[in-house]
């Protein structure tokens, strides 16, 4: 059990049901000291319940929860060395900023002078210096968020639990707070466990992401892992727009499966575990990996995939432009290109060739 020293939180086969609803159906997870780990999933996937079990607001029906190696199942929230940032900040409306932030210290009988110093320090870190006397009601949403952070962090918790903390903020403020959270986490080196349904948020902030679905962790990995090598169709779909194609294997060569579609068209997928001819697979490729060029141009060299199609729709997204292409695969494929990429001067109705490298497509599982 020597690894437990590096582990801030360990969950072992944790399960929780509410009546007939199985919210969490067996989760094992280790969160390392100083790590930023995100529980990502749609509403009802069990991510919030998991977090509430770590904090002590729900007790698991089964399984163990260790905080810094200590089994905390059965301990009330006030005896667990973690602190939480709530969705609605949950600032105490009858207290000013200083009393809110100093609340936990006061309960731990930290002397008044020391308390004032620690609160001041933490307010500096969350960039609210000099706001001690303000009441919670006088603060903007972003400021309330910072107070909630300071109130939790000032106790130096073994881990900070954040339950969709940016959900109530507008888009611009949210982006800003994402960077702030990362900065604060680096500055203090605190372990963060972050719950969100926003994949972009998860990808940009996390060291690791646990993608949850239906009470289980579907995949655990770095943002790059999760994004580029999704292991299940759910993960692939949830973590961004994805082109999924149902294909039948025509050739298997070493660890590459090739599907012939039409005249010179092919889909090439690496198959780590091997495949057999005639097998049906779900293959996937990210839109930004798909190159698009007008038909008739010199065909690209290489051993990647190549599919012909007609542009059905062009959607301008600002930095990116999205091309929806009808293909002979029996569905639309989406390609993302930088909007100022002159090479992609195609219009709706044009015949085009889509291509992507062998390594950019993945198998999502058997069909």
């Amino acid at each position: 059990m020597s690894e437990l020293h590096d582990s801030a939180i360990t969950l072992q086969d944790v399960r929780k049901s509410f009546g007939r609803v199985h919210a969490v159906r067996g989760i094992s997870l280790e969160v390392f000291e100083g790590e930023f780990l995100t529980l990502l999933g749609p509403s009802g996937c069990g991510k919030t319940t998991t977090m509430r079990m770590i904090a002590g607001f729900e007790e698991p029906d089964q399984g163990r929860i260790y905080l810094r190696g200590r089994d905390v199942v059965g301990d009330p929230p006030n005896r667990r060395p973690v602190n939480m940032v709530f969705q609605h900040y949950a600032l105490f409306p009858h207290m000013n900023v200083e009393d809110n932030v100093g609340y936990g210290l006061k309960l731990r009988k930290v002397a008044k002078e020391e308390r004032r110093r620690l609160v001041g320090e933490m307010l500096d870190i969350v960039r609210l210096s000099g706001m001690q006397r303000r009441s919670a009601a006088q603060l903007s949403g972003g400021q309330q968020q910072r107070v909630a952070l300071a109130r939790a962090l000032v106790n130096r918790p073994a881990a900070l639990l954040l339950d969709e903390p940016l959900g109530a903020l507008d888009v611009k403020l949210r982006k800003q707070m994402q960077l702030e959270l990362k900065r604060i986490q680096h500055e203090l080196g605190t372990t963060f466990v972050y719950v969100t349904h926003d994949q972009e948020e998860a990808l940009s902030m996390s060291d690791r992401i646990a993608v949850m679905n239906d009470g289980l962790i579907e995949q655990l990995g770095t943002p790059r892992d999760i994004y580029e090598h999704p292991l299940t169709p759910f993960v692939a779909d949830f973590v961004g727009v994805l082109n999924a194609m149902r294909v039948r294997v025509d050739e298997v060569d070493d660890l590459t499966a090739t599907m012939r579609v039409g005249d010179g068209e092919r889909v090439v997928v690496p198959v780590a575990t091997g495949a057999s001819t005639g097998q049906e697979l779900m293959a996937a490729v990210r839109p930004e990996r798909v190159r698009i060029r007008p038909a008739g141009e010199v065909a690209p060299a290489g051993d990647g995939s190549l599919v012909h199609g007609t542009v059905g729709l062009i959607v301008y997204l600002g930095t990116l432009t999205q091309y929806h292409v009808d293909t002979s695969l029996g569905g639309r494929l989406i390609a993302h290109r930088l909007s100022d990429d002159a090479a992609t001067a195609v219009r709706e109705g044009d015949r085009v060739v889509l291509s992507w490298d062998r390594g950019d497509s993945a198998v999502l599982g058997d069909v």
Partner: protein
Amino acid sequence: MNAAVSEGGRRALWSLFGFLLVFLYAPIAILIVFSVNDRTLVSFPWEGFTFRWYRTFMQNSALLLALRTSTMIATVTAIVTVALAIPASVLFVRRRFFGKPFVSALVLSPLVIPLVVFGIALLILFNTLAIPLSPWTVAVGHIVIALPFAVLTLVPRLERIPAYLEEASRDLGASAMTAFRSITLPLMTPAIVSSFLISFVISFDEVVIASFIAGDEPTFPLYLFSQLRLPSRLPQVIAVAVVVMLVSGVLVVASEVWRRLANRRLERQLARYEGEEAVA
């Protein structure tokens, strides 16, 4: 102004309002006038201004004693009622338990039981248990009838205090008791003050139950009733009524002003929480 109300309709509403004002306040105005009219018969004509009646009631020891008894009963009633209503409202709002509808019906039932019936029932009960009638027995009766009002004042307030505030407090290291005391209780204070005043007033002018179980020490309303038989005492009864009215008026207005000031900041924050809940 509301554009949907026509000119004629508006006039009708205003006259209805005026009518109500007159019916509410004319008797009170007349009371004040007669309390300083230098005449034993409570009627016009005006025979000159006097504070005579105020002086006589200040010397009336039986009346002062009744006033003291009632104040004592009302204070005890208000304190005990609030002390019971706080845990009761927490139970109703925050906990789910078996038989909750039954228990809430039990607590609220004094609202629909006629006071006469309840007074007789209490009298029989105290007799059966051989408990001597006293101001304390009156307080017991008043606590029972004031409790539903106090609970109904606290419940809506508590419903507006998000449960996650207490969770946040627990999370930061507070025991369940400390969380309640340092977070929920202060946020409930305005409603607690209101329910205290309501309980006090309910007890102070309650006459039906008191008439059954007051024993030898009459409460203030009981004493007033007993004096109505003696026409000569009427003017000083009126004078004391005016004093009670003014004192309670000042108390209620002052506490209401305080409550509103204390409430304003709180409400703003709670409204914000609710707004976010609606968005989420």
